[in-house]
């Protein structure tokens, strides 16, 4: 598997199909992996792929949109690429996608690879990349299924319990905006969280400011979140952000029968409307 990726990357760089291949290399702790940008064919042996390759590299493509780039992508990352292509942020002709079949990555805690998987993988059934030029591994033929048992659990709580549940989590937020920085869908030049006039998200420490940030961040990604789980992975205070994102994913699927990042051409639900929409409200 790793050899296949290295050979392909070498071929791409030698034939000058791309200037750069974005992939993973071992991190300095000899345990996890980190993103790497390979420019020289002689360097391709740095590339690896294993169950610690958690990062979604599609975010890096935004800054390289005009330069031919190769990328090693897991299924969830290919959905990110699809999202960016759909929103006209990337050029397909400048991309070479080395898709990797993935059956889930592992959590790393206290310098040990754990046996459990992060939330995104527990509920993921998309094991084959949705878009690729070169595929590594055997494609999985089973159709992806949806499992929202974790969301239903919270939906079934009483309103008071739910409120307590979220205030407990959001009160921890330090508004580092890491969830935004790492998100492939967050590429606005000026985020509403950075605006000073009007000051949508206040700089004071007061109830509700964290709530505003987390609510609106998630809503800006409604029908766009590709469930790569990077926001939850990066969060320094362990807010279960996938529970927020997946609620919107569930409702979008239910209301509009839409899944982000599956297709590059389909018009997303908030960019269009139907006169005969039956959404259970305002008909």
């Amino acid at each position, binding site marked *: 598997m790793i050899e296949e990726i290295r050979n392909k990357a070498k071929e791409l760089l030698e034939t000058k199909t791309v200037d750069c291949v974005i992939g993973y290399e071992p991190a300095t702790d000899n345990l996890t992996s980190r993103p790497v940008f390979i420019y020289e064919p002689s360097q391709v042996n740095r590339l690896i792929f294993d169950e610690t390759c958690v990062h979604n590299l599609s975010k890096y493509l935004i800054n390289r949109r005009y330069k031919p780039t190769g990328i090693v992508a897991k299924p969830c990352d290919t959905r990110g690429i699809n999202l960016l292509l759909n929103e006209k942020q990337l050029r397909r002709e400048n991309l070479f996608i080395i898709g990797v079949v993935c059956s889930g990555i592992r959590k790393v805690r206290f310098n040990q690879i754990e046996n459990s998987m992060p939330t995104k993988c527990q509920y993921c059934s998309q094991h084959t990349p949705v878009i690729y030029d070169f595929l590594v591994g055997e494609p999985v033929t089973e159709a992806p299924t949806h499992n929202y048992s974790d969301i239903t659990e*919270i939906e079934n709580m009483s309103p008071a319990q*739910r409120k307590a549940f979220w205030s407990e989590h959001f009160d921890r937020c330090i508004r580092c905006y890491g969830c935004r920085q790492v998100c492939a869908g967050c590429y606005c030049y000026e985020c509403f969280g950075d605006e000073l006039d009007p000051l949508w998200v206040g700089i004071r420490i007061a109830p509700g400011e964290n709530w505003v940030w987390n609510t609106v961040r998630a809503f800006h990604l409604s029908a766009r979140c590709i469930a790569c789980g990077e926001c939850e992975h990066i969060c320094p205070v362990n807010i279960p952000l996938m529970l927020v994102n997946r609620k919107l994913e569930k409702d979008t699927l239910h209301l509009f029968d839409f899944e982000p990042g599956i297709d590059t051409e389909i018009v997303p639900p908030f960019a269009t*409307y139907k006169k005969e929409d039956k959404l259970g409200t305002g008909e």
Partner: protein
Amino acid sequence: MAVSHEPRIVGFLCNWCSYAGADLAGTSRITYPANIRIIRVPCSGRVDPLFVVKSFQLGADGVLIAGCHPGDCHYTEGNYHTRRRFALLRPFLDYLGIDQERFRLEWVSASEGKKFSEVVADFTETLKRIGPREI
């Protein structure tokens, strides 16, 4: 001893229909509860979900979005977009701890002064029943 609770409603009214409808309610001397604070917006499609979230954060007990009936939008399609956004935002806010009943979308045309007063009266009644929102 319980002090009666006067809910505060933030109402985003579209300039072309609902604001004119509210105006008609006024000029026709129709009474409606003074609990609503009206913000005039060019179209119900102008109401960013951020405005709604911000209103709730700053202590609103309820948020009302009112616009032209489907098909009557001054900008042809603004209210269809509002409808889609609202359909997703309402259950989402409910999920994050804001009761569904505190957030409403209503279609009020320029000739429906009576309907506007009924909507506000009914919404105020509902909010009084649920009681104040804990922040």
